[in-house]
């Protein structure tokens, strides 16, 4: 009898996914260490204030939170989803207010200072958005074919999207779109709505890009200058100075273009020079010599560090670990007890996938540079906590699956 309960309890979590997550956290700690412990000054700080240790603390805290979330049935959680959603929206508004929102010298207001810690509300907004949308879409399928409900769902998605875009944080805002769409799709929204939405968004996106890349200056949508330049870099377009610009102006733009494409170029060199087997842990030169900027090496560009030091083999390991987590996630969605669990799981999986694809894609130049962290590997408390909470929700769906 006792034996049975124990077995039952053990089989209640997805062990394969846990293994994948654990592997990612191990890699994360090792390479945050490698990326930050360079130069003479790195070893000077006491060990408990170094990035790698902080990262481990975040892992422990995040795991604790995930376990906590697993203790509460996701149905109970979803009842609180709207409170979580509006709290997140409130935080997103608050962060835009100068003096409260902190820029960290990046030019974008994304952080809220909480004494010794800074939080990125957008990370929590992503999770509460998934919870809220899942809750909204879990209503009977017939109601979803009502256009009003469809537009409500779209509204639910656009509100945080626009607020995050305003920070501005294009990457974090963009990942909401595929997540929302996948959830709508998985929930059983009629095809015609989705087709229209897809078409509409597609046309808008195409128009937007054409405008940014080809339109004469005074016809262009007002984008933040750096965002426009990032897009130009991605599409390998010259910074078009007006044809009658002075030589100095042309030179300035050319230099700016070189500087702006610097990160991408250096990330590519890091990844490529790693070769098949890599240079060995902490043997990468791109980061140590500062070609890969120190400011981003341990967060947005952590994948370059791994790829340089562990080569293609390391890249395959990272991709495999993410694949394990993603596909077990989809399996959990398939086994979910009800549509709420299913949509929730699909949301978490899509969110994770979007992050991974955009971040690694940016390192290998198939995606433009947007400040999207690599879940669990990139350094950063908010990102780690957010990812682990999302994973906790996924395990929660698994715990209360229909098999029993």
């Amino acid at each position, binding site marked *: 009898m006792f034996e049975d309960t124990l077995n039952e309890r053990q089989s209640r979590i997805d062990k394969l996914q846990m293994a994948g997550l654990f592997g990612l956290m191990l890699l994360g700690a090792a390479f945050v260490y490698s990326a930050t412990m360079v130069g003479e000054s790195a070893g000077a700080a006491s060990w408990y204030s170094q990035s790698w240790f902080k990262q481990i603390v975040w892992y422990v805290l995040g795991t604790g939170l995930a376990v906590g979330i697993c203790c509460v049935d996701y149905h109970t959680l979803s009842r609180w989803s709207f409170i979580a959603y509006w709290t997140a929206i409130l935080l997103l508004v608050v962060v835009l207010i100068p003096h409260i929102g902190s820029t960290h010298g990046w030019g974008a207001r994304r952080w809220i200072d909480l004494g010794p810690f800074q939080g990125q509300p957008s990370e929590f907004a992503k999770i509460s958005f998934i919870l809220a949308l899942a809750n909204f879409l879990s209503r009977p399928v017939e109601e979803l074919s009502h256009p009003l409900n469809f537009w409500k769902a779209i509204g639910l998605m656009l509100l945080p999207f626009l607020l995050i875009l305003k920070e501005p944080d294009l990457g974090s805002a963009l990942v909401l779109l595929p997540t929302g769409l996948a959830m709508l799709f998985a929930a059983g929204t009629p095809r015609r709505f989705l087709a229209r939405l897809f078409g509409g968004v597609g046309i808008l996106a195409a128009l937007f890009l054409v405008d940014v890349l080809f339109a004469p200056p005074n016809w262009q949508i007002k984008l933040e200058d750096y965002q426009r330049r990032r897009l130009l870099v991605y599409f390998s377009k010259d910074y078009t100075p007006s044809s009658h610009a002075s030589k100095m102006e042309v030179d300035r733009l050319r230099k700016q273009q070189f500087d702006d494409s610097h990160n991408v170029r250096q990330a590519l060199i890091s990844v490529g020079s790693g070769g098949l087997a890599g240079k060995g842990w902490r043997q990468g030169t791109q980061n140590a*010599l*500062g070609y890969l900027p120190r400011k981003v090496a341990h967060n947005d560009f952590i994948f370059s560090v791994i790829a340089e030091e562990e080569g293609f083999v390391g890249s395959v390991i990272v991709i495999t670990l993410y694949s394990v987590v993603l596909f077990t996630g989809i399996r959990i969605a*398939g086994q979910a007890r009800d549509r709420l669990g299913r949509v929730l799981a699909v949301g978490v999986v899509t969110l994770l996938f979007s992050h991974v694809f955009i971040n690694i894609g940016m390192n290998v130049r198939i995606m433009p540079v947007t400040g999207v962290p690599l879940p669990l590997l990139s350094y950063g408390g908010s990102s780690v906590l957010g990812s682990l909470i999302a994973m906790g929700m996924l395990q929660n769906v698994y715990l209360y699956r229909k098999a029993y």
Partner: protein
Amino acid sequence: MLIFDQLKRNDPQLRLLTFVVLGGMAALLASLWWIQVVSARDYQENLETQSYRTVRIPAVRGKILDRNGSVLADNQPSYNVSLYLEELRVPFEAAYTAEAIQIRSRLAGQLHQKEKLLGHKLSSKERKAFTLDVQQRNRIQEQTHYEVASNVVQQVSRRLGQPLTLDYTNFERHYEERLALPYPVARRLDPVQIARFEEQANSPMGVDLEIQSLRMYPYGNTAAHLLGYLHRDDRSVEGEDAFFSYRLPDYRGAIGIEAGYDLQLHGRAGEASVLVNNLGYRQAENIWTPAEPGRNVVLTIDVRLQQAAERALQVYGPTTRGAAVVMDVHTGDLLVLASSPVFDPNDFVRGFPPGEYERMQALGAEKNRATFENYAPGSIFKPVVGLACLEAGMDPNAIIYNPGYIYVGRRRIRDLASPGQYDFRRAVMFSSNTYFITNGMKAGIENILRLSRRLHLGERAGLPTRQDTPGILPGLKRIRSNWFDGDTANICIGQGEIAVTPLQMAVMTAALANGGKVLWPRLVDRIESQDPTSGEPPTVLPSGRVRDELGVSPRSLQILRDAMRDEVEDAGTGARAVVPGLRICGKTGTAQVTNEHNQEVDRTTWFISFAPYEKPRYAVVVMVESGNFGSTTCAPIAAKIYEAILEGERDNAQKTLAQAP
């Protein structure tokens, strides 16, 4: 696979999601494969070009030694104090930050005042004027770098007890272009300064001593012409890598042995690679290929003799223009190859004292007068004419009356030998123009020129000093047309269309002394490794190489030698060359240098000789421009050289005695 279970189930939505995720991951893997495996090499090359700088490190130059092992050209360590800029990064940054904060707060104050004055806030565009733009930041950076470095230089200056200033533009250029290399602050410290710098335990931040090998000529201006000098040249020589990011100072021979044997002396430059970070500061350095030191060149010169000859040559002080050559008549070894005026080859490396370069230019001091200038031989050519006559069947005892002049056509040529009866012996002793013109015209110009050609007059002596002139000798074509008796008469007394170098005359004299062998002059004995323990065999150049044979009978040579002996010993024109204990055979010469109106404007005075008469070993040739007469100006110089030779032989004999068991 277990995790793909949902594919089998009838769940189109999740199936699509699975395919999308699978596709995404596959796309990432494919790109990674392309970048990390297929084109990895390209990116590795990119990495190398951006993070490595190559530095050309010159090799230690080979030494030049004389025949007894005295070092004529050496290398001396030169100590520089250098700034290692990468060690100053922290103070650079601190200074910049402090300065930027100060300027920013001042700008903020100005902005505040302006807004107060206007009574409203400025728009963000107007505010731009009160923030630092990139150019201003760069300028502040430049200035703070300079200030930090300048402070360090002041510390060095106090320590060395030598006023030093940091040149702003130089420093900035170095910072922009050669950041990975140390910046030299003070060059060529003297021993006191080195001691002062080293005695204090902690040197100022980022400062260290740097050693550089510098060429040094311990004998100063001795043998300067044949040693030559160096000029700065950092380029790669053949066989070296042509592409370097930076090159350390290197030198190449410009002239003399330094130039002629530059390939051997120079060695092979090494290559270091400097790992630099994104800002260009040096992080690490390693030597890829070490420099191979150059090889030593051992000369046939005897530096003591050379010094003695150079001293003896200074009859009119340091501005005397002249040359002296001492040659071993059997081997062709050049024991002395002296030229005056002299210069100091050290000046080309260390810089000239004020006025020295101009003095050198005015005197033509760089020219090796022993090998690189044409001179009319005058009477010292008479032995060749005499030999040609004897071979043509002239009776040496036949007597010719000299009235004190001779008419050739309508031209009257003076004869400085006193009027009287002259046979061959007396004609040589007193250098009678009448005798040699009369007999030379009988023997014919062709005989004289044939003999001259066997002496290889009019051809280069084959010296590796890059200062080698062929002289002038008319060819057979020249004498077939438009050639008059007057021209032949001129040649007979060593004037007119003939010009020689002192070295050529030494080769000629040696041929008279050694029985008719025309030798190649030999200046370099061997080339050997700088490291005596290397076990590498030296390259020895062959000695006694015969270039040609005079092809005259021993009898004719003996008659000539006897006459030349009597010229010195029997109160002839060479009487002033007499040295006790040595029987010298000689011939004086005083050639006129004429202008276009055939007026004498200058004289070239000569003395050719060999000794000892019984068993000739040395040929000594002395030439002085603007001298008085060969007999009064040059013969005494030769005497001094012979004395030095004798002294050297005595010393050597004593040494061998002392070494004998």
